[in-house]
């Protein structure tokens, strides 16, 4: 009677399940990319990227949507990155760790789970109505900024936590103030992690439709003025444009290739943002090598 080595069998079984799960994820990813690239790349050419939509959006390009997404993302960055990073520094380095701080952290974690459409409604009542910014790039950018904030704070806090206490202690023992210690001995080593998490959050925000739906995105807005007027105008955006082309257009079958083209451009944009994040992290890591 052959003796079965159950330990080995269990191990092989375990690894097979893990490999299978990984395989499923990779497969889904490749399927999505393949689908969008194969159906969208036909529509993407120089005209598509630089021209505005024509003939009831059955022809032309998506340039206004690209510009709109750019401006909104810019507002989001300027709003959420400093606030998020400084909030994380305060929570992790300065605040007395007690029940109140725990409650604040809990609130932040929960905020990251709030549906984006709820953010949209909140942004509408706060920025559009109450602060009177109206339907605009500013309102949308700020709303997306709120959406990104929990991500930025959490990622930044995690990055700060990985900096060893000994870096701080060594500096304090030499007579450095808390801020001097943080600026010279903590931040440089936390920034790669902070930036990575932040940019990932921003990439997600750039693709959100619901928050901008209530706060400023427009069906057709081909001309955008220069800064600063652009902030107070409505705009087109890639994710919303994708939505329109796929489901709201009066000739959706005809414009489907354009919809896929839009999706393709959106994915490339997000890929670019992630690449920038990785590059920044790489440069910082090189400059501030740790043990």
């Amino acid at each position, binding site marked *: 009677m052959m003796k079965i080595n159950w330990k080995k069998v269990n191990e092989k079984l375990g690894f097979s399940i893990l490999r299978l799960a990984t395989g499923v994820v990779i497969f889904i990813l490749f399927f999505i990319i393949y689908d969008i690239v194969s159906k969208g790349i036909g529509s993407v050419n120089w005209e598509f990227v630089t021209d505005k939509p024509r003939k009831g959006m059955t022809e032309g390009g998506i340039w206004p949507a690209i510009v709109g997404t750019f401006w909104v993302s810019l507002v989001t960055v300027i709003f959420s990155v400093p606030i998020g990073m400084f909030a994380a520094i305060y929570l992790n380095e300065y605040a*007395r*760790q007690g029940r109140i701080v725990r409650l604040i952290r809990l609130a932040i974690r929960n905020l990251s789970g709030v549906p984006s459409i709820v953010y949209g409604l909140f942004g509408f009542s706060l920025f559009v109505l109450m602060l009177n910014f109206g339907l605009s790039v500013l309102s949308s950018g700020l709303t997306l900024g709120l959406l990104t904030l929990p991500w930025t704070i959490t990622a930044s806090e995690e990055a700060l936590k990985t900096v060893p206490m*000994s*870096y*701080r*202690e*060594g*500096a*304090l*023992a*030499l*007579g*450095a*103030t808390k801020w*001097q210690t943080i600026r*010279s*001995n903590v931040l440089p*080593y936390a920034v790669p992690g902070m930036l990575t998490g932040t940019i990932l959050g921003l990439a997600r925000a750039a693709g959100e439709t619901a928050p901008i739906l209530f706060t400023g995105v427009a069906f057709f807005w081909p001309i955008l003025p220069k800064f600063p007027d652009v902030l107070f105008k409505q705009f087109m955006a890639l994710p919303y444009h994708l939505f329109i082309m796929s489901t709201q257009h009066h000739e959706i079958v005809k414009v489907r290739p354009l919809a896929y083209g839009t999706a393709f451009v959106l994915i490339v944009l997000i890929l670019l943002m992630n690449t920038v994040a990785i590059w920044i992290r790489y440069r910082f890591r090189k400059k*501030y*090598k*740790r*043990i």
Partner: protein
Amino acid sequence: MSEIKLYTKKFDFYYGHFKALTDINLEIQKNKVTALIGPSGCGKSTFLRSLNRMNDIIPGTIVEGTVALDGKDIYDKNIDVVDLRRRVGMVFQKSNPFPKSIFENVAYGLRINGERNRGKITHHVEESLKNAALWEEVKDRLDTSAMDLSGGQQQRLCIARALAVQPEVILMDEPASALDPIATQKIEELIFELKDDYTIVIVTHNMQQAARVSDFTAFFYLGELIEFDETDKIFTNPSQKKTEDYVTGRFG
């Protein structure tokens, strides 16, 4: 002529509800080496860290009693902790060089205290490295990473770094415990040379080291100061039985 640089009176220390130190009354003499010995967990490191208020950064710690530097209570509300830590420097058990160049490590203390003059900084860095007996070994590679140095060199770098801010007191928390015998010997020689200009308080697990290096020894046990006297007396003719048991190796 002995002068008292630091003293503690009726000093109690709590980590939350846990009383780590009870009624410590100790006098540290100027330009002498005082060793703190005792078994693990007896409170000697806690006491050392109280002398420059490094325990402040641990949440939930409470102090009672007095710790005085040059006669002034360091826990007084009006004391500038940042300045205190410049005057009372510290070298940690596990050397913690910053992940910067050797030069920048030593220059750090100077820069944060406002020194901008490149020439002065370079001069002080060289002085400090010489005083820490590290200059010869690193003078040609000051811009390389401090992390590439050996354990003993890193520890001497930390000493140089502490010396650069020109402290009055140097606290050393088991400075040689992570080092090999040769490196340890170098550190001990260094301590001997430094005591002419600085007051030194050293925590050590190694009794032979305490006997070799210090002028005075304090024996801690379970948060209490059992005995404090000249080193010779502690190791050859202690008054307390517990002290005698410890230094002869019967426990600890």
